[in-house]
């Protein structure tokens, strides 16, 4: 992959700490100019973006896999908190839950039968498989549709879906990772033998389909009606609870601070600490893996796939491993993001914002370098948020010389879209002039 080029990065050993310090400085400036709430909000989403970038970087940097369906795996991860920590809708499971499980079982049996037929039949193979698939499909629909209708009929205004297991939210994070990993296994098994641009198109499709499923299967996650009120994970409290807690109020008064603002800042700080902890554990694990024999083999495969195959390495199997692990990390971040937001909005999963923005993070940060992904995640998220402010400001300066009128108004109105142009330009500039990114791979 020619985003890697030989040569050492300027700055040597100090490069990484310096760049991170610069990032921290940017955030501090943000805190002092616009307030700690805003700055901490950026930090928290920046941490999540960093984890997302880590996952994508695993797939691209270690295995050269161009996954353009990242948005789907993020969405699946977001499903975790919905399925795990929301309260179950009373009566929903008994009304249709068994029906859905039965339908899934039928689907699995049908696919298994088709695979078995494919392996064991010679003549009439195509016809037999087609017949089995058609029969299975209609049987599946016959059981699935009424079950879904039953579930969605229960309290559609505020529920209309299965609900979750009512378990602690922290548990939902690994569940989100597992959901994404499961989908990755299916996708990987089918699509991973393909060439890189075919894989890109295939994963693009996967992403769209997963999001379409989440937008439509209301029995699962209320579709476009969204799931709100997802419980916060331990140890993060609710602001209102903090404001009612006498101990908290005492300490706040002692420092002469405003309780409402301090409560929101405390909540954000706790989230930040939680996310940072997860991030650090992940990096530690990834660095270990990178420097292990397994990691070296991965990079050997990436650098010369043909030679590796000739040496007997199971390239596709290794790629599958990486793909699944990377998607697990992406799913984890997706779950964390929904915990932070407290709600799951399927229609917000927009590929430009979720898939391609993360790719910009990985490329800018430095593909193949874990710390690079973290830096890229933070930095690009920061720029993305600030661009919403800078865009209109730049536009005002640009149009200041123009007379008032429809053209000027139109340009000013379209300032928010300049974000996209900005991101595109950043990606293009980095790919052209600094393809190894800010923190190149060692």
């Amino acid at each position, binding site marked *: *992959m*020619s*985003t890697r080029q030989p040569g050492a990065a300027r700055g040597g050993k100090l490069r990484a700490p310096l760049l991170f310090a610069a990032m921290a400085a940017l955030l501090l400036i943000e805190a002092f100019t616009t307030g700690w709430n805003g700055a901490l909000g950026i930090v928290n989403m920046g941490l999540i973006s960093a984890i997302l970038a880590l996952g994508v970087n695993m797939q691209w940097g270690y295995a*050269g896999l*161009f996954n*353009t369906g990242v948005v789907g795996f993020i969405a699946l991860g977001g499903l975790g908190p919905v399925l795990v920590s929301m309260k179950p809708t009373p009566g929903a499971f008994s009304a249709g839950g068994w029906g859905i499980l039965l339908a899934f079982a039928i689907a699995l049996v049908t696919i298994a039968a088709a695979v078995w037929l494919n392996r064991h039949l010679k003549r009439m193979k195509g016809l037999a498989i087609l017949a089995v698939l058609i029969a299975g*499909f209609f049987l599946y629909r016959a059981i699935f*549709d009424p079950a879904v209708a039953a579930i969605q009929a229960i309290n559609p205004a505020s529920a209309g879906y299965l609900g979750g297991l009512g378990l602690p939210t922290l548990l939902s994070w690994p569940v989100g990772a597992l959901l994404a990993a499961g989908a990755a296994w299916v996708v990987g098994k*089918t*699509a991973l033998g*393909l*060439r*890189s*641009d*075919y894989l*890109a*198109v*295939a994963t*693009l*499709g*996967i992403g*769209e*389909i997963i999001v*379409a*499923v989440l*937008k*439509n299967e209301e029995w699962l996650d209320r579709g476009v009606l969204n799931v709100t009120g997802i419980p916060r994970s331990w140890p993060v409290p609710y602001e209102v609870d903090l404001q009612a807690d006498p101990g908290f109020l005492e300490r706040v008064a002692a420092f002469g601070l405003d309780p409402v603002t301090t409560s929101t800042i405390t909540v954000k700080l706790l989230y930040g600490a939680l996310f940072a902890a997860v991030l650090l554990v992940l990096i530690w694990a990834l660095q270990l893996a990178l420097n292990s024999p397994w990691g070296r083999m991965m990079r050997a495969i990436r650098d010369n796939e043909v030679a590796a195959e000739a040496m007997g390495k199971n390239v596709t199997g290794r790629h599958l491993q990486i793909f699944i692990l990377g998607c697990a990390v992406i799913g984890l971040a997706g779950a964390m993001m929904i915990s932070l937001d407290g709600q799951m909005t399927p229609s917000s999963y927009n*590929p*430009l914002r979720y898939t*391609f923005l993360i*790719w*910009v993070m990985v*490329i800018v940060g430095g593909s193949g370098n874990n710390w690079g992904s973290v830096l890229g995640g933070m930095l690009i998220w920061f720029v993305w948020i600030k661009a919403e402010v800078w865009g209109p400001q730049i536009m005002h300066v640009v149009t200041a010389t123009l007379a008032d009128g429809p053209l000027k108004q139109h*340009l000013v*109105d*379209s300032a928010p*879209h*300049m*974000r*996209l*142009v*900005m*991101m*595109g*330009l950043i*990606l*293009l500039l980095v*790919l*052209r002039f600094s*393809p190894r990114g800010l923190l190149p791979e060692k």
Partner: protein
Amino acid sequence: MDILNALVAILNYVVVPATAYGAQLALGALGVTLIYGILRFSNFAHGDTMAFGTAITILVTWALQAAGLSFGPLPTALVALPFGIAATALLVLGTDRIVYAYYRKVRAAPVVLTMVSVGVMFVMNGLTRVLIGVDEIKFTDGARFLISAQEFKKATGLAEPLAIRTTQAITVITAAIVVAALFWFLAKTRAGKSMRAFSDNEDLALLSGINPNRVVAMTWIIAAALATIAGTLYGLDKSFKAFNYFQLLLPVFAAAIVGGLGNPLGAIAGGFIIAYSEVAVTYAWKKVAIYLIPGYQSDNLLQLLSTEYKFAVSFTILIIVLLFKPTGLFKGKSV
């Protein structure tokens, strides 16, 4: 058993829309496949190129309409089309010069070019939004129907109507003309043959004295034309909304890959295969069942998949073809 009405229903709800949609996909896939065959990368910015081209065409259409001009029963957009094509051609030629040419020079891997096209996609997407906004725009004018439902019912006395909108007819006719022109160009002209030669065997083409810069420029211009025409026809038929064109990327690529990437005939075949599959699978066959099966009673719409899952259909076909015949139905090329 009412075969005639069933037939008309199928024509009206499946065949006519699918043929129009297939023509639009075919034009889009042709652009993608040409870029792949000659420039050797998958251009993820193609959807937004279609959007940009359509946006310019819409702006010129509005200008023409404001000046009181129209095209009679045909949409004014057709007159605006050449301007849209010209603007888009300039844009993609400029993009090639500033962005892609460098990577050709350093012989970057195709996946790098695809990634670069993602950056171009961002910029084009933003540019289009700045130009025309994000709202849904309908810009058809002129006669609405070639055959309206009432006219058909009156003429045939059937219960089931068959309506053909002018935009659907125009789509098919325009696509046919464009495809014929393209194939004539590729098969009969020296320039077209040089493009085919370049796509077939680049080294030998260079050896033969074929000018690579000219081939590249022609490719981009033709691709821009195809994208603009496809996008405008799609917008005339349905409506223009910038985000939808990004979503078209998947069926367009699926069509190109299914037909065999790099193979123009395959792109057309693929376009229609994908279109017909999408429409047929998401159509509610209940009405036809009622006509064909005497005494058919059911609440079941007989819709295989909801229309929300249209893309699942193109995607599934794509995966099946990739698994069993990776070079596509008509042999494409692997880069």
